[in-house]
C-alpha cells in the first residue's frame, strides 16, 4: 500500500499538514462561533426588545441569513469585503487592490450566518427563565447589570446549551465551505527573542489542504476520505464535549 505511506507524519507524508489544517479549521469554526455568539446575543436582545424597529430588523436578519445559501454569504464577504476595503483605502489615497485577510473573511461570513441561528436559540433560552425569578431579582433591588450577570446569563447559558451544541456542529461543517475561497493563513518567519528563528509557515484549512494533497499526488479519494475522517473526529469529540457540559449544567435542575 504505497498510498498509505502518504498518510505518515513528516516530509514524505501528508498527515502533519492535514493535522495542522484541521487545527486551522477548528480555529475558523471557533472564531465564527464566537462572532456568531456576539451577533446572536445582539439579535436576540433586539427580538425581545419593546422597540418595533429593533424587532423588525432582527427578524429580517435571522430570516434572510437562514434562508439563503451560506456559500453566497461567503462570496459576498470575499469579494465585497475586499472591494469595501479597497474603496476605504482609496479615501486615504491608496489606489491598489486591498485584499481582506482570508481568516477574517471566513470568520465574519460564518459568524454572521451562525449568529442568525444562535439568536433563535438564545431567545428561546431567555424565554425559558421563569418570570418570577426576574421579578424577584428586581424586587431585591438588583440593578439591570447585576441582574443580567447573576440571573439571566447563567440561566440562558444553561437552557441554550443543547441548542448551542447543535449550532456548533453546524459551524464546524460550514467551515468546510471556506475551502472555496482558498483560505491560507500565512505566518512570516519570526525571530524569537533573537534566539532562534521560527520558519515561515503557511496553513490551509482542512478541505483545501486535502485538495492540495489530492492534486499533487493524484490520489483524491484517499485525501478527501481522510479530510472526512478528520471532520468526523471533530464533530464526534464536540458531541461528547457538549454531552458532558449539558450534564454538568443541568445538575440541580428538576425536570418535569
Amino acid at each position, binding site marked *: 500500500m504505497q498510498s498509505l505511506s502518504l498518510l505518515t507524519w513528516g516530509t514524505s507524508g501528508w498527515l502533519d499538514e492535514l493535522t495542522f489544517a484541521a487545527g486551522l479549521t477548528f480555529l475558523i469554526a471557533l472564531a465564527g462561533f464566537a462572532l456568531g455568539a456576539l451577533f446572536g446575543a445582539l439579535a436576540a436582545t433586539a427580538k425581545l426588545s419593546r422597540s418595533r424597529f429593533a424587532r423588525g430588523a432582527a427578524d429580517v436578519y*435571522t430570516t434572510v441569513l*437562514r434562508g439563503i*445559501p*451560506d456559500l453566497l454569504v461567503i462570496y459576498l464577504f470575499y469579494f*465585497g469585503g475586499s472591494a469595501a476595503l479597497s474603496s476605504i483605502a482609496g479615501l486615504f489615497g491608496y489606489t491598489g487592490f486591498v485584499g481582506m485577510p482570508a481568516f477574517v473573511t471566513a470568520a465574519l461570513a460564518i459568524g454572521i450566518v451562525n449568529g442568525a441561528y444562535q439568536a433563535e436559540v438564545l431567545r428561546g433560552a431567555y424565554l425559558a427563565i421563569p418570570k418570577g425569578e426576574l421579578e424577584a431579582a428586581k424586587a431585591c433591588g438588583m440593578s439591570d447589570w447585576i441582574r443580567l450577570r447573576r440571573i439571566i446569563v447563567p440561566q440562558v447559558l444553561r437552557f441554550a446549551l443543547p441548542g448551542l451544541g447543535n449550532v456548533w456542529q453546524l459551524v464546524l461543517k460550514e467551515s468546510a465551505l471556506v475551502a472555496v475561497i482558498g483560505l491560507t493563513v500565512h505566518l512570516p518567519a519570526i525571530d524569537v527573542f533573537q534566539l532562534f528563528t521560527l520558519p515561515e509557515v503557511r496553513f490551509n484549512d482542512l478541505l483545501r489542504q486535502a*485538495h492540495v494533497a489530492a492534486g499533487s499526488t493524484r490520489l483524491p479519494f484517499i485525501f478527501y476520505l481522510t479530510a472526512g475522517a478528520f471532520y468526523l473526529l471533530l464533530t464526534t469529540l464536540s458531541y461528547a464535549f457538549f454531552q458532558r457540559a449539558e450534564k454538568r449544567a443541568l445538575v440541580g435542575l428538576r425536570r418535569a
Partner: protein
Amino acid sequence: MDVAFLRETFLRLLPGVPLTLQLAFLSVSIGLFFALLLGFAMRARFAPLAWLAHGYVFVFRGTPLLVQVFLIYYGLGQFRPFLQELDLWWFFRSPWYCVLLALAMNTAAYGAEIVRGGLQSVPAPQVEAARAFGMSGFTLYRRIIGPLALRQALPAYGNELILMVKATALASTVTLMEITGIAHKLISETFRAVEIFLVAGSIYLFLNFLLTRLIAWGERKIAPDLALDKPELKTALVH
C-alpha cells in the same frame, strides 16, 4: 442603487433557477425514499442492520456536505479505469449526477433521523390498541403508525427541505451553473458583489418563502391542532 444593473443581474440569474429546483426536487425525492428505508432499518430488530443504518447516518451527518460532494466527484475519479470497466464512468464523470448523488445521500441521512423520531413518537398504547383490534403489518402502518408519525415528522422535514434548497448552492463548486454558480461568475466578472448578492439572495428567499407556505399548508392539512402558522422561516437547528 443601479436599478438597470439589478434588472440585468436578475435576468441573467433566472436561467439558473430551473437547475436549482431540479437538483432540490430530485435529491429530496430520491433522498426521501432512502430516508424511509434507513429510518426503518435503524429500528430493525436484526442488530447488524440497525448498526449499519446508524453508522451511515453518523458518517453522513458528521461530515460536511462539501466533503461528500468532493469525495464523489473528484475522489472517485481516482478509480476511473475500474469505473470504466464497470461501465459506470458516464455517471461519475458528470458533475450533475455526482451532486445529485451527494445531495440525495446526505438528505437521506438527515431524513432517516426524522423518520426514526417520527416512528418513535407514536404512543405505544395506540399500537397496542390497534393490535388488539386485530390490525397488523401494513394496515397497522397505513392506518395508525403512518399518519401519527407523519404528523410528528412534518415540521422537522419541512426544515430539511429548506436546507436542501440552500444546499444545492454547493453544485456551483463542481462547475454547475445554478443560481449561485451564475452569481459567482457574475461577481468575478463585475466585482459588484453586493448588488449580485442582493438579487441572488432574494431569489433564494422567494423560493424558500414559497416552500414554507407550502409546508405550513401541509401541516395545517394533516395536523390542524399542531400547526403553528408562523410566516417566518423555521430552519432546523439539528443540522
